[in-house]
């Protein structure tokens, strides 16, 4: 008889003693604190309840690279933050081109918040209809030797409403540097960089688009042992050159047809005509009973581009949102963030993976892909 592999994950497991001991330490500490807090409460009850304090947001203007407003300058450009340069694989030529374009996705909002010793400011922002990328500088956050920076939580609101689908990380160096270390120039400047990527969806998972003009609020909660909430709020600015094509490209025998693509320098939106096909699987529920789980099949995924000069970039996707926008109309939409700044007008073709992404990190080649010509 073959083993049911999922059943193994469900089996009752024994909690190791080391886990029980450490949990008990925490409970003992809480028990002591609880008693002290209980006494505090009794004392407070003798007085009027104090008014709830509202945090006074200390918004100050941050001088960014010499300060002053940003004007288009023919030969000079504002250096991007190290993390944004690295994560978006942007060349110097592209930085100059983007800064000097009228419809640029690039902005340098002058926003900062200081709480205690730590000041957080916006270094730069990239924006298109679907995607936001922001680099923040964090100054005054002192790290002891070998300590990595920590941010406990980060919340985002657009026009006052909470949104989901974002990731953040401290920039810890380019490929090849030791993971988790802070680059030397950051350490010397005593300034850390925190990078955020956001493809906003609302609480129902619906994508939020047309982002320019919306007010973004970013709240950062507790840097390491330094408690507090740093709030930065600004109006999103920027537009992007978008190459938009209505198509009717059948992707082999996958059953999917690409009907429209919109390509900006930092993201791509792909619309498919792909009839929903339920696939089912038998799994065990928490009581060990076999239950049937159904799901929708996925169309071939976008994985890269071929440029007009013949350069092929694969593995340039950096998350996003995927799914049926209209199940009855078979309209499946993928909105994908890119990990490389592209000039949409120089994209020759789009690559879609024929099979599911390989589990290993092997490089994807053109012959593994369906190719759609845009030129």
């Amino acid at each position: 008889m073959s083993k049911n592999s999922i059943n193994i994950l469900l089996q009752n497991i024994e909690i190791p003693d080391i886990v029980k001991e450490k949990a008990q330490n925490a409970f003992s500490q809480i028990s002591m604190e609880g008693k002290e807090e209980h006494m505090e409460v009794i004392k407070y009850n003798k007085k009027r309840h104090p008014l709830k304090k509202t945090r006074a947001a200390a918004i100050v203007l941050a001088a960014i690279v010499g300060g002053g407003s940003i004007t288009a300058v023919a030969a000079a450009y504002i250096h991007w933050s190290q993390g944004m340069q690295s994560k978006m694989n942007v060349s110097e030529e592209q930085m100059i081109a983007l800064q000097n374009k009228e419809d640029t996705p690039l902005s340098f909002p002058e926003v900062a918040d200081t709480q205690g010793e730590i000041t957080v400011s916006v270094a730069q922002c990239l924006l298109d209809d679907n995607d936001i990328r922001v680099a923040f500088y964090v100054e005054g956050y002192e790290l002891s030797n070998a300590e990595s920076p920590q941010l406990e939580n980060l919340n985002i609101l657009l026009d006052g409403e909470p949104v989901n689908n974002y990731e953040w990380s401290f920039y810890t160096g380019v490929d090849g540097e030791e993971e988790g270390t802070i680059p030397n120039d950051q350490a010397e400047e005593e300034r850390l960089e925190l990078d955020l990527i956001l493809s906003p969806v609302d609480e129902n998972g619906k994508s939020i688009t047309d982002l320019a003009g919306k007010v973004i609020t970013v709240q950062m909660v507790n840097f390491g042992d330094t408690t507090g909430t740093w709030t930065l709020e600004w109006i999103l600015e920027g537009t992007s050159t978008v190459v938009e094509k209505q198509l009717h490209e059948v992707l082999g025998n996958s059953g999917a047809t690409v009907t429209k693509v919109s390509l900006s320098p930092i993201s791509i939106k792909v619309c498919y005509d792909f009839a929903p096909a339920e696939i089912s699987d038998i799994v065990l529920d928490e009581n060990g009973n076999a239950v049937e789980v159904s799901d929708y099949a996925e169309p071939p995924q976008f994985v890269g581009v071929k440029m007009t000069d013949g350069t092929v970039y694969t593995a340039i996707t950096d998350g996003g949102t995927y799914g049926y926008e209209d199940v009855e109309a078979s309209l499946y939409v993928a909105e994908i963030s890119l990990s490389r700044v592209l000039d949409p007008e120089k994209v020759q073709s789009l690559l879609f993976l024929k099979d599911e992404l390989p589990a290993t990190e092997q490089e994807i080649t053109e012959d593994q892909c369906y190719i759609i010509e845009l030129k």
Partner: protein
Amino acid sequence: MENLIKRAKNKDPDAFTQLMQSQMQNMYRTARAILLNDEDAADAIQETILVCWEKLKDLKEDKYFRPWMTRILINKCYEMIRENTRITYMDELPETAVEEEVSNLEWKEALAALDEKYRLVLVLFYAEGFHTKEIAKMLKIPNSTVRTRLSRGREQLAQYYREDSMAGKEQII
């Protein structure tokens, strides 16, 4: 559980302890799925308990206690990985810890056979009973990615057991 959450929110340490004790299996499965190490999992759980005690009053809706607590635990686990504060090798563990590593062996082997991104999603879905949408929120990834990872994770686990079963047959021959 609702009653315990209410009392715990009012800073009743006994209720809070009882509440968190009821979540120990869940917490351990999740922490182990990320860290693959009991000692690190213990540290992450300890810190999570303390954070939950401090922040529970901020939880707006009691019905979201489990996803909220799990999210805190996942963040703690990833913080530990980023900090890279400890790399524990089996030959460095004290004897009792090695004995503990041997317990739940089949379960641990199954976890270790999976890539991390599949491991966590499978544990949250099958063992913890979260819906894919809840998992997507917790991990801040699209729902479709959760579903893809579930599918690939199931396949990877099945493949592992197919190979395991073949190896067993070869040994018998």
